[in-house]
C-alpha cells in the first residue's frame, strides 16, 4: 500500500466563524483520482484549499506529504493583468511543461492571444495547463482542481479528462471537486460532502449511489 500524499483525520475547518468542514477523514494517494462531490456550499473548495495548505485545520489532523509539487487551479481562476497566454504560462516553475500541456489541451494556437479577450473556457485551459505543469514530477505530485470541466465544450472537456488520466498513470495524485457526475464516476474514489461532513466515500459505484444522490441533492440521478 503506497503512502497517501494527503491524509486527513477528523478534519475541521472554521472560516469567519462558520463551520465549513467537520470531522472529514480521507486520503489522496499517488496514482489515484479522488473526486469530491456535493451540493453548493458543501465544503468542496475548502477541502481542496486545505489539501493545498492554504487554510489551516481548526481541529483534527491533516498531513501533507506531496514531494513533487502541488498544482492547484481554483474554481474561478483569474489574473489581474492582461498577459498573453504564453506569458501566463511563463509563471509556472516549469514553463516549458506548461506550454506543452497547453498544446495537449488543444489551446496551443492561443499563445499570442491576450487573456482578457479569451473566452471563459479558453482562459480555464491556460490556468489548467499552469496547474498541470506544477504537478508533473513522475511521482509524489498532488494536483488539486476545482471544477476543472466547468465552461468547457465537449472536446476540451475530453482533453482535460485525458490529461488527468495521463498524470494519474504517471503517479500523480489527482483530486477534483466537481458537479460533473460523469467525471466523478471516472475517478477511483468518490467522496460525497454535505454541509461540511463526509456522507459517503468509496469507489464511485458504491459511494455515489442513486440513494445517496437522492438524499444529498434531493433529485433523481440522471439515467437512474
Amino acid at each position, binding site marked *: 500500500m503506497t503512502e497517501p500524499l494527503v491524509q486527513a483525520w477528523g478534519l475541521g475547518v472554521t472560516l469567519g466563524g462558520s463551520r465549513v468542514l467537520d470531522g472529514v477523514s480521507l486520503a489522496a494517494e499517488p496514482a489515484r483520482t479522488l473526486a469530491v462531490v456535493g451540493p453548493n456550499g458543501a465544503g468542496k473548495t475548502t477541502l481542496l484549499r486545505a489539501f493545498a495548505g492554504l487554510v489551516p485545520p481548526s481541529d483534527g489532523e491533516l498531513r501533507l506529504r506531496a514531494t513533487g509539487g502541488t498544482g492547484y487551479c481554483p474554481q474561478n481562476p483569474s489574473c489581474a493583468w492582461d498577459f498573453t497566454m504564453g506569458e501566463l504560462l511563463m*509563471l509556472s516553475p516549469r514553463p516549458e511543461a506548461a506550454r506543452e500541456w497547453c498544446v495537449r489541451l488543444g489551446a496551443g494556437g492561443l499563445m499570442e492571444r491576450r487573456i482578457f479577450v479569451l473566452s471563459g473556457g479558453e482562459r480555464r485551459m491556460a490556468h489548467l495547463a499552469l496547474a498541470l505543469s506544477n504537478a508533473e514530477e513522475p511521482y509524489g505530485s498532488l494536483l488539486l482542481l476545482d471544477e476543472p470541466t466547468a465552461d468547457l465544450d465537449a472536446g476540451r472537456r475530453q482533453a482535460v479528462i485525458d490529461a488527468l488520466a495521463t498524470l494519474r498513470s504517471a503517479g500523480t495524485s489527482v483530486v477534483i471537486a466537481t458537479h460533473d457526475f460523469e467525471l466523478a464516476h471516472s475517478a477511483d474514489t468518490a467522496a460525497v460532502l454535505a454541509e461540511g461532513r463526509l456522507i459517503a466515500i468509496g469507489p464511485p459505484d458504491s459511494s455515489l449511489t442513486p440513494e445517496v444522490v437522492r438524499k444529498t441533492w434531493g433529485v433523481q440521478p440522471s439515467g437512474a
Partner: protein
Amino acid sequence: MIRGPAALALGFALVALTTFIAVSAGSTGMGWGEGGSLALLRAPRAAAAACAGLALGVGGALQQGVFRNPLADPGLTGVFGGALLGAALLLGFAPEAAWSEAWRLPAAGFVGATLASAALATFGGGGGSARLLLAGLGVNAFTAAATLIVASVRPGARETIANGAYGDWLGTATPETVWLPALACVAASLAALRLAGGLDRLSLGDDVAVTLGCDPRGLRIRSALLTSVAAGAATCLVGQVAFLGLIAPHLARALAGPSHRMLIPLSGLMGAALLTAADTVGRSAFTSGTLPAAAVMAALGAPAFVWIARKSHD
C-alpha cells in the same frame, strides 16, 4: 507594444533627453551659461527630479502589483502623504535635527510612509478597487489634515511644509541635500527589481501564487517597505506628487506589457522622464512665474486617472 530591451532603451533615452533639456532650459531660454555655470546650477534639481520620479514610478508599479489593482497609486492612497507627514513632523517639531544630518528627513519620511502603508493594508487590503480606494482616500485625507495641523501649529515651518504639500521642494535642491535621498531612490528601485517574479505570480491570486512557490505575505511586506523607502526619499526631494505613481506604470504597461520584470524598471524610467519634464515645463514654460512639478503632474494625471478608472471598470 514593443519588446522589452527596446522599451528599456526607449525609457533610458527619454530620461537622458528630459534631463538634458532640464539642465539646458531656463526661464530666459535655452543654454548652459558661461562655462556651463547655469547647467551646473540646474544639475542638482534635474538629478533630484529624475531620482524622485524613478522612485515614485517604481513605487506605483509595486503598489499596483501588490494590490493587483491598476488604480493603486501611493500618491492617491496616502503612502506619499504619510511620507510628507513624517517629514513635516520632523520639520515642525525638531527643525534643527531635521537639517543637521542628511539621513534624518528621509528617515522621517520612511517612517511616515510605512505607517500609512500599514494603515492602508489593514483597512484596504483583501477587497476590490472600491475598498482599496476608499481606505486610501481616508489615509490620504488623514495625512493631509495632520500635515496641515503641523504646519498651523508650527508657524516657523509653515512655509517649508506648505511647499512640500505643493510638491515644490525641487527648487531648494543642492548637492548636499540631494545626494542621500537620490541614492536611496535608486537603491530602492534596484531592490524592487527582485520582487518582479513574485509580483507576476501574485497576479494569479494568493492561493495559486502560494502553490507556485510565492510567499504573498512576505512579498507584500517587502514591497511596502521598499515603497516606503522610495516614498520617504522621493518626498524629501520633491514634496508630495500625486498621479505619477499611477501614470508611469500605465505608460510602461502600454509599452512593454504587464510582466513586472519589464514593468518595474520601465515604470521607474517613465516616472523619471515625466517628473523631470514636468519640472522643466513648470519652471520655464510660463513667463509670469513658475508652477510646481506636482501641479503639472496633477494637470496631466487627473484626466488620466478618470480615463483609467473608466477603462478598468468597463
